[in-house]
């Protein structure tokens, strides 16, 4: 599978194969499921999904601009000079300060849950998306 393109942060696969813009701007269940996995967002109800679709439609207005033959711009900084720093040690040594923000710590280590806990598959979890078209 090819790597996703960088346009709008949405993968080409999502836009193309998953019927992203099929049927009058409706977002497919596969894409919604994918978004729930990625962002751990729960769309909760039809209104939530509708809000998402309206947001996408709003952003789609950008496509009305003809960009044929125009180099995409990454940021307004793109013709600035990228500053190169000398290879000197100037930071660090602030363990105490950094750990002040940690809810839990063990001997100067941050504590995190044991690895990524994957979201169960669509069929196996409680979500509004179950059984929706």
């Amino acid at each position: 599978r090819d790597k996703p393109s960088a346009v709008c942060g949405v993968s080409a696969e999502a836009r193309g194969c998953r019927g992203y813009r099929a049927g009058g701007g409706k977002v497919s269940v596969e894409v919604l499921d994918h978004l729930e996995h990625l962002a751990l967002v729960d769309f909760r109800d039809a209104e939530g999904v509708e809000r998402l679709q309206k947001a996408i439609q709003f952003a789609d207005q950008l496509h009305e601009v003809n960009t044929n033959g125009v180099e995409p711009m990454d940021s307004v900084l793109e013709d600035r000079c990228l500053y190169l720093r000398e290879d000197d040690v100037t930071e660090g040594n602030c363990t105490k300060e950094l750990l002040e923000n940690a809810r839990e710590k063990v001997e100067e280590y941050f504590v995190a849950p044991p690895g990524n806990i994957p979201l169960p598959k669509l069929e196996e979890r409680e979500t509004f998306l179950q059984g929706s078209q």
Partner: protein
Amino acid sequence: SQSSSLCKTTPSTAKSPRKIVFVGLEIHAQISSNSKLFSGSQVQFAAPPNSLVSFFDASLPGTLPVLNRRCVEAAVMTGLALNCSINKKSLFDRKHYFYADLPAGYQITQQRVPIAVNGSLSYSLCIDNKMSQMVTKTVRIKQIQLEQDSGKSLHDDTRSQTLVDLNRAGVGLMEVVMEPDMCCGEEAAAAVRELQLILQTLGSSQAVMAEGQLRVDANVSVHHPGEPYGVRTEVKNINSMRFLAKAIDYEIQRQIEELENGGTILNETRAFDSKLGCTVPMRDKEGQQDYRFMPEPNLPPLILYDAKSLPANMNHQQVINIDWIHERLPDLPSVKRKKLVEQYGILPEHSFTLLNEDGLAEFFESVVKQTQMKPKKVIGWILKDLLSYLKQHSLTVKESPVSSFLLADLLNLLEKKEISSTAAKQVLAELWKGEGKTPLEIVKEQKLELLQDQKELEQICQAVIDGHENEVMAIKAGNPKVLNKLIGLVQKKTQGRSNPVLVKQLLEKKLSG
């Protein structure tokens, strides 16, 4: 010289038709620098947890990346050494995924336009495990990109938690992508070994696998000739050169067996279990990752210059000149080997061994400088006597109790025929003890000097001849091998202090008369 692939296709057996194997590599080399890629925290192995972490490394809001010049130079050097085209304009991107040791939730990397592309690496293999036959192969380098390293996770399964140390987070990495031109573990290991030597010669990375400065992921796929390419698996967690070939060969075998049994290969990530010697599916890597690549908005494009495009009015410190770096590249291992062979008349496989051990080539050259013995003879002492001793005692060349000065001193005694080569080995064994004695002192102590008195030697030879009529008759009857017995007897009588070549000459002279 190029040879056709040794193992591109597996052999055909009655049970299964031949299969084509593809092995590609993604190698992450930690850049050797004082500070990190985008921050001023120190780069150091084994420091107290979270002591080498800046606010940026911890991804605190309001912090920004600032590119380290040294890291760019390291990547350019490496690209040039691997025959790559250096992109004068390259870009930074964000690669998003969630993991506790990646506090920002994304890694800054170069996905769209990396710093170097389209290179090649030549490496050598011994055929049939014999050092005497070496073949050269080439692997294409797809690209080299600059990217951040992540922190370290220590999994504590008993307490169901992960401890995170961000000391490594943000350290500069060069990812070297090798195309699937290799076809077995041995080729992959040889390619990685050569890359390691190149990186160490350049100084762009110390590339010590044991300290995580060189990490290798292998992409393995297998298919029948004429059929579409097979599904690829990624093998991670290979952390030593020893396991690299093993892990890859296991995975190749696993895929072949799976296909022969009518199974399918899943496009998955597998980890190498060094204890069991097999690859297992990795937990935590379920489903396809969607990295949501996007341009890094806080970094403008990285512009590099060469002699032609050098800007007139820019601060030197802000300009990286590819040609200037090219002119200052040191001799790469392949060039060093060639020079050693040409200068000293040693065999190509000798040059490989010399460069394979840190400091050994320098030791050899140092001995050659200090002795009259020909380099072709010295190399034997270096590769057989010195190296095997060091290996037996797990010592590096630097830790050798016998210095190049002492060895040269010993070889001079041998060359001047003051001792026999057997005696020389005895002296060497004594020198290993590192008691500070010179070779000459040991020779005197153990009375190993060769008898210089020709008359005395002649008398002893005559005595041996007189005492062994049967052997003399055998020799005169046309059995020359028996002469060796007589030589041995003279050696015994002289307590090893006679030159066997001279003894042979004397005996032959006496017997022919």
